[in-house]
């Protein structure tokens, strides 16, 4: 995935003029940020009422404009309506509802315990907005990955700029048009564009940047942020492994794998299974079950199925075609492989035991190709997974509790799911984010609120109880008092104060 766009600058300018939206360059990016800082400094975005009003309006947006959203997603991705409904609209609303339900509680300061060392005192942690934040979204869930972080930013009381992905241009356009109609545009703005516009935005000083996308651009974002000491959340990807043990309910397991792979934007999702590892003996059964369930879901000619997203654009289509055409790999296709270049579609494809040094084994697939790697014993899969960079998600299907425990203990990933795929995304009490190459930071639910907040430590001290031991000149007795205080040692303190000799 790259930031390149097929539109030229002229086209972008022309379109923007037609829409009367701003074409962003360094100069007006700076004034945009300045304007939002002005809004933020009025304190308007801090109030509970402002935050909840914006979030309620986002619910209205997705409800009232649902058919426009479906249309945009169809245009950009040929996303089946049901997928659009569940994974984009529904998830966005769920996120809003969680915020509305919990925000009052989250906004309250958290009391913190204090000890003898600072006695008498009381302490609390106060959540405050960071200021003006930037959300850079991705193309595969262009509504969810734009609005979900924006909702978090708003819930935490920030002003926010959203840069939707230009690789999903219809959705980008739609968001640019709709958001100003529904939310407070003095504090929440959409900037469309590609590399040049994103670069102009990244030159500015933000109080936080949340980026969803790939590792190459993630590095660029972090390097730009470094110039301003801006903290970042990078939601990246990786090769998500699925380990399948032989003692599972195969029918259920296979349905869940298929739902997580091809049911999620036809494999173009950061949490989609990328490769399966199973035993040599179990593989034939697994492959048969996959084949028959794939046929059940998508019919004999999946290229005709309306229930699969297409590949987003020709450039990605070529990328995936090349992975399949690789000499080392083309002979390993055991199911599927059909393509339609005109309609940019590729059928669900299974490949068995591709060589470890093939490109398809090295890079994140992000498409409808699923690899199956076989091992002698299922535990051997852990070595394979640990030899690669940490993925965003790791999945295990098993009924063996000991294997499950070993999996959780020895494999590091952003998140893990046992006996299912992708679902953890929807559980808002779990942080969603990567580790290592799959990213840093997390969001969803309260984690969104926290990620866009500064947790300010507040300590209240009284004027009483001022131990002279703190102050110079430093006598031996004072030093003993200090020691006792720091060690939280009440007895030692009393003894010192009453002059009990110390060994």
């Amino acid at each position, binding site marked *: 995935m790259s930031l390149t766009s097929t539109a030229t600058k002229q086209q972008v300018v022309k379109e923007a003029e037609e829409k009367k939206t701003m074409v962003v360059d360094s100069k007006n990016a700076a004034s945009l940020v300045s304007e939002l800082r002005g809004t933020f400094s009025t304190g308007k975005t801090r109030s509970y009422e402002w935050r909840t009003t914006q979030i309620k309006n986002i619910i209205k947006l997705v409800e009232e404009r649902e058919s426009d959203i479906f249309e945009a997603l169809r245009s950009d991705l040929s996303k*089946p309506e049901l997928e659009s*409904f*569940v*994974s984009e609209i*529904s998830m966005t609303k*769920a996120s809003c509802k969680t915020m509305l339900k919990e925000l009052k509680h989250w906004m309250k300061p958290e009391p913190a*315990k204090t*000890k003898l060392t*600072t006695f008498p*005192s009381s*302490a609390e*942690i106060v959540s405050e907005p*960071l*200021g003006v934040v930037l959300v850079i979204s991705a193309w595969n869930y262009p509504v969810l990955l734009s609005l979900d972080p924006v909702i978090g930013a708003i819930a935490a009381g920030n002003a926010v700029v959203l840069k939707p992905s230009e690789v999903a241009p219809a959705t980008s356009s739609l968001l640019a048009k709709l958001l100003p109609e529904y939310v407070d545009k003095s504090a929440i703005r959409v900037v469309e564009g590609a590399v040049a516009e994103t670069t102009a935005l990244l030159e500015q000083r933000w109080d936080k940047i949340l980026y969803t996308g790939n*590792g190459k651009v993630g590095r660029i974002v*972090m390097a730009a942020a*470094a*110039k301003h*000491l801006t*903290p970042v959340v990078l939601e990246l990807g990786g090769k998500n492994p699925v380990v399948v043990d032989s003692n599972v309910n195969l029918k*259920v*397991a296979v*349905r869940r794998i298929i*739902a997580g792979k091809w*049911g999620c934007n036809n494999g173009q999702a950061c949490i989609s299974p990328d490769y399966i590892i199973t035993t040599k003996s179990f593989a034939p059964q697994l492959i048969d079950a996959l084949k028959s369930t794939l046929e059940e*879901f*998508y*019919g004999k000619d999946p290229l005709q199925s*309306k*229930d699969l997203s297409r590949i987003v654009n020709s450039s990605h289509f070529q990328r995936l075609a090349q992975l399949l055409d690789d000499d080392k790999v083309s002979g390993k296709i055991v199911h599927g492989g059909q393509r339609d270049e005109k309609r940019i579609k590729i059928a669900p494809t299974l490949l068995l035991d591709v060589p470890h040094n093939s490109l398809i084994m090295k890079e994140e697939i992000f498409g409808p190709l699923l690899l199956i790697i076989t091992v002698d014993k299922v535990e051997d899969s852990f070595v394979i997974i*640990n030899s690669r960079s940490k993925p965003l998600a790791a999945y295990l299907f098993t009924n063996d509790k000991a294997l499950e425990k070993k999996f*959780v*203990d020895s494999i*590091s990933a*952003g*998140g893990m*799911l046992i*006996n*299912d795929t992708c*679902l953890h995304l929807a*559980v*808002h009490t*779990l*942080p969603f984010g990567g580790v290592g190459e799959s990213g840093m930071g*997390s969001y969803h639910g309260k984690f969104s609120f926290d990620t866009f907040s*500064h947790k*300010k*430590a*507040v*300590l209240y*001290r*009284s*004027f009483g109880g*001022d131990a002279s031991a703190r*102050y*110079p000149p*430093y006598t031996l007795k*004072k030093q003993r008092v*200090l020691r006792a205080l720091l060690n*939280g040692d009440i007895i030692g303190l009393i003894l010192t104060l009453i002059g009990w000799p110390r060994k």
Partner: protein
Amino acid sequence: MDLVHLEDNMEELRECFRSRKTKSAAWRRDQLEGLMRLLKEKESEIFKALKEDLGKPPAEAYRDEVGVVRKSLNLALSCLDDWMAPKKVHVPRIGFPTTGELVPEPLGVVLILACWNFPFTLALDPLIGAIAAGNAAVLKPSELAPVTSSLLAEYIPTYLDNKAVKVFQGGSPVAERLLEMKWDKIFFTGSPRVGRIIMSAAAKHLTPVTLELGGKCPAVLDHLPNHRDGEVAIRRLVNGKWGPCYGQACVAIDYLLVEEKHASATINHLKDWITKFYGDRPLETNSISRIVNKSHFKRLRNLVQDPTVAASIVHGGHMDEDNLFIEPTILLNPPSESEIMTEEIFGPFLPIITLKKIEDSIEFVNSKPRALAMYVFTKNENFQKRVIAETSSGSVTFNDAIIQFLCDTLPFGGIGESGFGRYHGKFSFDTFSHEKAVLRRSFLIELSFGSPPWSDYKLQFLRAAYNFDYIQVFLMLLGLKRK
């Protein structure tokens, strides 16, 4: 440890981490206990090193260094099991039987870059967090505190597992080499300028960073009608300025804001207590640290070269280059564009800025980059509320200074130019951990309607259902029965 074998050392650290040795609670406990023994057995050497590097008096060396590290070790040892335990999370009821939990796991091999002013604390406090979280670690102490750096390089390998915890000594060239390597986390304490360099280097490897930087920490002194309170406040102000490493601390008071009409009384009280604390020859009476080196001495001297700044000195100002000593110095309303008012002072100069009314301090503070800490001396609760709501800083302490550093239940870290990320107490453990989300589903309960081929009927059903709970819907789709 020299750089020639850096790659080999890195490989050894990675191998050690891969072997899962550092993951065990027993190993972590061992290391922490090893550090505790180091503190106990080598305390007088540590005091000596701090005296040589910074002229730190033993009381300061204990209060700000050995005592702090000991407190952190005690906490980590007593809380380790609790910190390491997975935490269950609530999963929507419709998801039954599904369970969720958060499992903390180490990041891998981490790099800690310490600063010179609290060379012991700023090396070991983060290290305690890294070890408690189960990581392997490399520590680069500051070369500007060479004796402490040497001490750490000598004893860490003997008291700790030297395959998992290593010390590299040296200045910028060493730091640059280390930054070329791929780390799983970098923890840096120092200046914003270097913070930017660290983060840029980290970006190449997508390494998360914690940057503990500095800034101009303001103190605000409201009128305190009770005479005794006023005295306590002054003592705490003096201690908050010249106490921590003689003003060379990220949390030291940088400048003081006070109402015009109370300015001269305040200055007089400050003078009194400065004399009471430090006497006439503070270096000789072992009450203060010295200026760390000639380069910083010159930097500080430059801050008061400008005649308009020098003219604003109302107390002190005497400088002794040979002994690297500058008298506790108070300035009254130096020009606002002067460097002493725009740059972090990190030394024994205290500018006092007068205001018409104390509430104006909020606007003043907001006109500067956000500080690591803010200290407000007031009993006016409304003013306290306004400070919290209308200013932003790493932390706010009311009616005292510096002491928030000791409160382990409060996160310690900055915002904006003063940094990001935090540590102390459990926050140290968290900062060196990855909180892994784990969701477990059972094979029971599967719903066949929730799969393609999609039909209008299925969509209709969902629409009817979705008005109640969207998470339920999503879960239903992936195969759970709805009650």
